[in-house]
């Protein structure tokens, strides 16, 4: 066993509780809060969806956060170390699988942030003009007719990628101490920007119709199991579990840390941001519907289409300061995006650092360089196709499998009550046996159900009509590769390192 030097220990610890909480919130709050939650809520019963969402948050999201905080804090190590130390050496692969998945996500997630960077600049002269869709797909992305035609690398995206990977390296190479400082600034600033967008949106004509579309409840939707699946899936993807981030972050907390309370704060802040961001989205959508005469249901209200087609169209129609509001919107997206992106790189960088005793600077540099080259595929003219495929398979399968794996390994192979006892020993309030029931039975059953539905739908028809070989190469192969790589990394001999106070 090799100990980390005192200097490294200082750099690799949270400077305050607020730094840790802000970093956890910043990691959980990402682009999905802005472009996924509002859409899912609106199509799944409007205001009634909130009931299903809150139940999912309290029965799966927050319990899983407590699980990951407890595992990281008790083991004082990166995810591979955490699984090896608590469950057993032969389970180290589970930790590696957990850190590889978010790294895969980062490869395309960072490209979307690079798009936001370009669009922030384009906002200055509203360069998308009257045809935002044509500008985005043809002029900006140079989207090819299919994934097999790569097209050239898009220079604006490439420039954004170089800057963003370098930024991630600078933020991460010193350890979590710097992450905390950055998040203490970015979280409040992005919240202020979001408030500006909401206030601006709500003062526009048609905004009320947009908000009404979002919040008017359809309680009969709660009888539809798909609404409940959507609620659990949204909570699961949003709170940032099953990615090794919360395990890694919690490893650097002092011994006496309130894990349960921190989990509730993180989960509620994440959900609160989604709930609030929807007002910024639907007020502008309502305004766009009012101005163009197109029904809200016919406007793109989710994913990249929302951020790069619908929203720019709405911004162009603003009566004054359109450029300023465009910039604010894309800066806010970059802020919430980059804080999630570096949190997804930190687990793998940290795991390499801990296993092989490579310096944090070197480990981060290796990961960022590999990440940069691997993400270039998404900067090509066919990038959007590959992005959609990988995103679909990682989100629908890899993360759900990891969540399920965590519940089963920690719930059945390991003695789960030990993690509960650990959380209770250090936390302000105690969690009861209900938590064991949620982790061992409720959450796994729901995750199996989500997985089964996703599997059935993918078998029934190829995703978005893509050729089977494209789906295999772009979606299945990366997941199988990281799964196998997890065992390879476990087998390679390392030098164990433990985080100490």
């Amino acid at each position, binding site marked *: 066993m090799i100990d980390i030097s005192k200097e490294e220990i200082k750099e690799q610890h*949270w400077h*305050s*509780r607020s730094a*840790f909480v802000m970093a956890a919130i910043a990691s959980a709050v990402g682009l999905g809060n802005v472009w996924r939650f509002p859409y899912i809520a609106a199509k799944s019963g*409007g*205001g*009634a969806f*909130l009931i299903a969402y*809150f139940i999912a948050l309290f029965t799966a999201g927050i319990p899983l956060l407590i699980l990951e905080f407890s595992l990281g804090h008790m083991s004082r190590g990166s995810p591979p170390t955490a699984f090896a130390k608590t469950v057993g050496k032969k389970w180290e692969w589970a930790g590696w699988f957990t850190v590889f998945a978010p790294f895969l996500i980062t490869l395309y997630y960072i490209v979307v942030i690079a798009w936001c960077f370009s669009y922030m600049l384009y906002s200055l002269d509203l360069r998308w003009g009257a045809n935002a869709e044509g500008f985005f797909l043809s002029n900006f992305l140079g989207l090819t007719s299919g994934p097999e035609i790569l097209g050239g690398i898009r220079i604006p995206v490439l420039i954004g990628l170089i800057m963003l990977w370098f930024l991630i390296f600078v933020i991460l190479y010193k350890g979590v101490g710097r992450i905390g400082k950055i998040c203490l600034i970015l979280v409040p600033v992005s919240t202020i920007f979001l408030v500006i967008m909401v206030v601006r949106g709500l003062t526009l004509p048609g905004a*009320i*119709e947009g*908000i*009404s579309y*979002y*919040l*008017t*409840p359809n309680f009969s939707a709660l009888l539809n199991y798909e609404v409940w699946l959507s609620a659990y899936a949204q909570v699961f993807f949003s709170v940032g579990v099953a990615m090794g981030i919360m395990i890694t972050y919690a490893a650097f*907390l*002092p011994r*006496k*840390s*309130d894990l349960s*309370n*921190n989990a*509730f*704060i993180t989960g*509620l*802040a994440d*959900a*609160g941001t989604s*709930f609030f961001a929807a007002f910024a989205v639907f007020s502008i959508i309502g305004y766009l519907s009012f101005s163009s005469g197109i029904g809200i249901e016919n406007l793109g209200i989710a994913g990249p289409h929302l951020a790069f087609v619908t929203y720019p169209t709405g911004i162009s129609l603003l009566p004054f300061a359109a450029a300023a509001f465009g910039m604010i919107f894309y800066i806010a997206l970059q802020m919430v995006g980059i804080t999630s992106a570096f949190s997804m790189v930190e687990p793998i960088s940290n795991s390499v650092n801990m296993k092989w005793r490579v310096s944090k600077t070197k480990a981060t540099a290796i990961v960022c360089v590999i990440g940069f080259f691997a993400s270039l595929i998404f900067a090509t003219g066919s990038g959007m196709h590959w992005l959609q495929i990988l995103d679909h398979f990682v989100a629908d399968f890899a993360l759900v499998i990891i969540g399920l794996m965590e519940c089963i390994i920690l719930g059945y192979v390991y003695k789960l009550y030990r993690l509960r006892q650990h959380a209770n020993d250090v936390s*302000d*309030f105690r969690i009861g046996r209900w938590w064991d029931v949620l982790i061992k039975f409720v959450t796994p059953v729901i995750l199996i159900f989500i997985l089964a539905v996703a599997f059935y739908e993918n078998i029934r028809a190829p995703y978005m009509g893509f050729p089977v070989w494209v789906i295999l190469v772009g979606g299945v192969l990366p997941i199988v590769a990281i799964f196998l790589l997890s065992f390879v990394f476990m087998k390679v001999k390392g030098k164990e390192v433990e985080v100490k106070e």
Partner: protein
Amino acid sequence: MNSLPLSAIAMLIFGATVLYGGLVYFLYRALKASKKC
């Protein structure tokens, strides 16, 4: 339409109460416990 339907207002209050009320409650507990981390 000039105003939000009553049912939408009710869901707005419900959502805000659970999320922000809950957040304030747990932040208050954290401050009360005044733990370092």
